[in-house]
């Protein structure tokens, strides 16, 4: 954990204040208050149904929150359309099911948003795309289609697609849960490189080994609340709450 001290954590970039969210009668989030800082890597873990995915999906408003405040990069996230567009342009997301566009080529998956949203020329967009493919390690796949790639390659493509919009924050919703074990490492390697390059990341994951290496802070979710938070040292060596101890004993 020593390399963490080299990184400069920046100013606050995400603030959530008593955020709640219900699905019908089920309350997924019961009041989440937390702050995320620039360049910080935050890992969210906890039992299933604890609200982890719901929480990060409220940050780019794939799920609108019911009450409370969410402020991203100084912009409040609410019904306002312009605010939403701004937030979505600085937040990128990687899904558990990849959600790649099957009818577009690998290259086109990456270039479609920069071209259509940012108005880049095709040559510019393709240059960016090729650089990103290089960065995630699959430059030779540029003209294939997503269905022709392996699971690990697809998820790396999904990361490249999100990075093409030059986000300030990257959200990862259980990125490796749908992968075969031998492909998890390649995706985690890309995420590690991303973290070391200074991206603000919020990851929901079960990969504790990776998390311990890379995360600056951990948030333990249970039943819609943040039960405990702290650095890797604090959480794993000295968990304060009973529930944290219980969960850790089950997964480690």
């Amino acid at each position, binding site marked *: 954990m020593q390399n963490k001290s080299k990184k400069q954590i920046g100013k606050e970039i995400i603030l959530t204040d008593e955020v709640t969210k219900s699905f019908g009668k089920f309350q997924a989030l019961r009041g989440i208050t937390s702050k995320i800082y620039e360049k910080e890597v935050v890992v969210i873990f906890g039992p299933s149904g604890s609200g982890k995915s719901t929480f990060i999906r409220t940050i780019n408003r794939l799920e609108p929150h019911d009450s409370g405040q969410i402020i991203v990069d100084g912009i409040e996230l609410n019904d306002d359309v312009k605010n939403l567009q701004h937030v979505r342009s600085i*937040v*990128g997301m990687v899904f558990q099911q990849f*959600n*790649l*566009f099957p*009818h577009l080529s690998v290259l086109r998956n990456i270039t479609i*948003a920069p071209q259509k949203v940012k108005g880049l020329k095709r040559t510019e967009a393709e240059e960016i795309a090729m650089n990103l493919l290089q960065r995630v390690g699959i430059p030779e796949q540029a003209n294939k289609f997503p269905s022709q790639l392996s699971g690990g390659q697809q998820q790396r493509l999904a990361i490249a697609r999100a990075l093409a919009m030059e986000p300030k924050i990257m959200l990862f919703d259980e990125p490796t849960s749908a992968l075969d074990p031998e492909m998890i490492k390649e995706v985690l390697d890309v995420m590690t490189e991303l973290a070391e390059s200074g991206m603000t990341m919020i990851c929901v994951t079960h990969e504790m080994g990776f998390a311990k290496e890379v995360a600056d802070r951990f948030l333990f979710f249970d039943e819609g609340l943040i039960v405990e938070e702290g650095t890797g040292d604090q959480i794993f060596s000295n968990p304060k709450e009973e529930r944290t101890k219980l969960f850790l004993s089950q997964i480690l």
Partner: protein
Amino acid sequence: MSNNSIKWFFGTFFGSVFNSIVTVLSALIFLFLINNIIGFISTAEWEVVTVNRRLLLIGRMPAEHEWRIWSILWITSFLIFSSINSWGSPSKRNLLFISFITLIICLIFTTSSTILYVVISLVICIVSYTVSYFIYKSSYQKYSQNSLKTLWILLLPIIFTLLLIGDGPSPNLWGGFLLNIILASIAISFGFPVGIMFALGRASSLPAIKIICTVYIETIRGAPLVAWLLLAWFVLPKFLPTFWGLNEISVVIRAMIILSAFTSAYTAEVIRGGLQSIPKGQIEAADSLNLNYRTKISLIILPQAIRVVIPALISTFIGVFKDTSLVFILALTDLLQVGRIIPEQDPEFFGKALEALCIVAFLFWIVSISLSNLSTKVEKSLGIGSR
């Protein structure tokens, strides 16, 4: 070796009591049908068809306008035969089928006065077929495919220009097989995009739009097509604005309007099924990339939705083509009407109703079967339906 085949024969056909009964019954049905069909063909007199060829195919179009029809035929056959080879050569079986159909169509068209034109058409077919084969193998494949696509889109306007240019015959004179094809083409060309719009409207989350689109779709699907056509006959003129002489538009145009509306409702239903089958994650990914509504729908959602339902779409289009025979209720003389009227009114052909009906059925059947074969080919090349 023959022992095995005998065993197989008995096993398949007489394996059990039930099986044997079925075999016997089927054989009887087969023999009965074949007997009747052969009896019919041998005693049939086909003059009713050969003499009235022109009427059957193009209705009462005056002779001086025939050149339009020939030009349309040439352009269409050029397009068809070039397209066959431009996206991969057809299988032997399909090739046989196509040649067979072409031969029969040539026989139908050939009379002493038209033999020259038929020969020209055949030449065009063969030339475009071979030339496109070579282009497909060469590096100009992409160009030819793109230009063919554009030509197909322009085909309908071209046909209309050819028909109407220079004081062409009024639409009321269009008839026969030509009428069916034109009606179907218009209905599909207009009905398809309108259907997409209504499908999107019905899938919308905005209640006002959703309700209105649903009402439109369900109302049109609620009544039979003949009822809607009858409405066009009696009522539509009264509802059209009186300026531009719009309320006196010809019956053919009215039929086109109704058929297009009808097609749009059924197309909307099919596409709605496709839209429902798209995983929610696609929309979420598009949203998180901040794609706007237009881009999301046109580049991400619709291509996937339509691709999934192409078989059902083509099936709907085949249905539209068959439904064009219903315009008899507007006193339009389409192919079926001509085939019915000739034996009834021309004393020379009394009692030859079956022969005429046969040819009519055959023409409809050819188009439908070709379209459904096309659908299978498209399904295979897109890999749908095979999991």
